[in-house]
């Protein structure tokens, strides 16, 4: 009979009952297979004593915490400063545009002054004939 396979040897490690059947018969008469089974049992026992430490890692919390800096803005960052400056510039531009005075209202006096029309008034350039030109003389 051929030697037992690793799977057959692992089945024999089952602690629920003593080995039985042809595999047990082979094992009784095969020194090699008994040695392999002993090695497997020793390995199995060692694995049975190994305990995995469970740290209860919360990946969601860790991912969120890593992502948090991207959602936070610090004012002294260049990008933030540029945005603040842009906001001020935008506000000033809009305010100036909205507050831009319309066409100035021009009065008679302004246009007369612009055309020097008051020089054409009947007035004395020296001032000395003013009493003559300005008097009303109704009496």
């Amino acid at each position: 009979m051929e030697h037992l396979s690793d799977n057959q040897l692992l089945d024999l490690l089952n602690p629920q009952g003593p080995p039985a059947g042809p595999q047990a018969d082979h094992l009784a008469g095969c020194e090699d297979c008994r040695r392999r089974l002993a090695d497997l049992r020793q390995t199995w026992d060692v694995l049975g004593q190994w305990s995995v430490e469970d740290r209860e890692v919360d990946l969601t919390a860790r991912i969120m915490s890593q992502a948090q800096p991207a959602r936070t803005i610090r004012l002294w960052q260049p990008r933030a400063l540029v945005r603040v400056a842009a906001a001020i510039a935008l506000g000033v531009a809009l305010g100036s545009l909205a507050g831009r005075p319309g066409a100035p209202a021009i009065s008679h006096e302004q246009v007369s002054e612009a055309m020097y029309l008051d020089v054409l008034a009947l007035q004395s350039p020296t001032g000395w004939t003013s009493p003559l030109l300005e008097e009303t003389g109704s009496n």
Partner: protein
Amino acid sequence: MTRRIFHFGLLALVLVAGTGAYALRQGLGPPAPRPADCTRHWLSLSQSQCEQIQQDDPDFHTDAQALSQSLRAHQQALIADVSEPATPAEQIRAQAEAVVEAHQALMRRIVQHLLAVRRHADVRQCTLLNQLYANVVQTTGLQNGAGPGRQRRGYGGPPWAPGQGTDQGQGRGMGRGQRHRYGQLASSLGLTAAQQAAATQTDPNYTADAARLTQEVRDAYAAFVRALQDLDTPDAQVQQALEAFITSRRQLELRTVDYVLSIRPLLSAEQQQQLIGLSRRGGGRRWRGGRL
């Protein structure tokens, strides 16, 4: 700081900066219009009209400013001469003549420009221009103590123009034939009866000359304003009317200067101050020469 708060902050910043800029802009008020803009806006001149006027009379504002500065300088010099009791009469007369000539030069330049504007303006714009003349004339009339008779004459011509309006003889109008108080100059100087008698002895013809010349000035002025306001009057005729007005006013001014200089030695210190005050009235007029 979260993005949301940051963005709200930016929005608030835009609002605050915008409000500040708006308030500042409003507070500053509209910029003072340039002289050329005043004329353009008031008369609603088109771009092409402006260009034609500019081409026709390119140096008006420069020339007028220089001439008004010259007038102002001469007026100040006259005031200074009159203020100094030791100034010889010849010097004062020469300075007064310089004032009159500077004023004439400015008037000619202004009328030249008005004619250029009139050539390129349509009827509606000429009407607006006439309203401006009328405003100047009206202002002169009101300053002279105009009553209802003057004010009702509207824009048709100067308030004292003969045959115009419907209320001649009412109020205090200056229609032809109404009397002038030619002693007003003596009153303005505060001459006593004795001084007036002495003045009459010194220059016996002044009262009659002043009456005649004043009426000539008024008539010439009325004719000039009518010619300026009448669109059918050719430019040459307007300038002729202007020259007639200038000539008559020059005669009145210089005749009065001679008279005042002849009685100047009779004036007391207080009366000298009155004379200086009259000179200042000439130098402090509404025209730009008095403002610079």
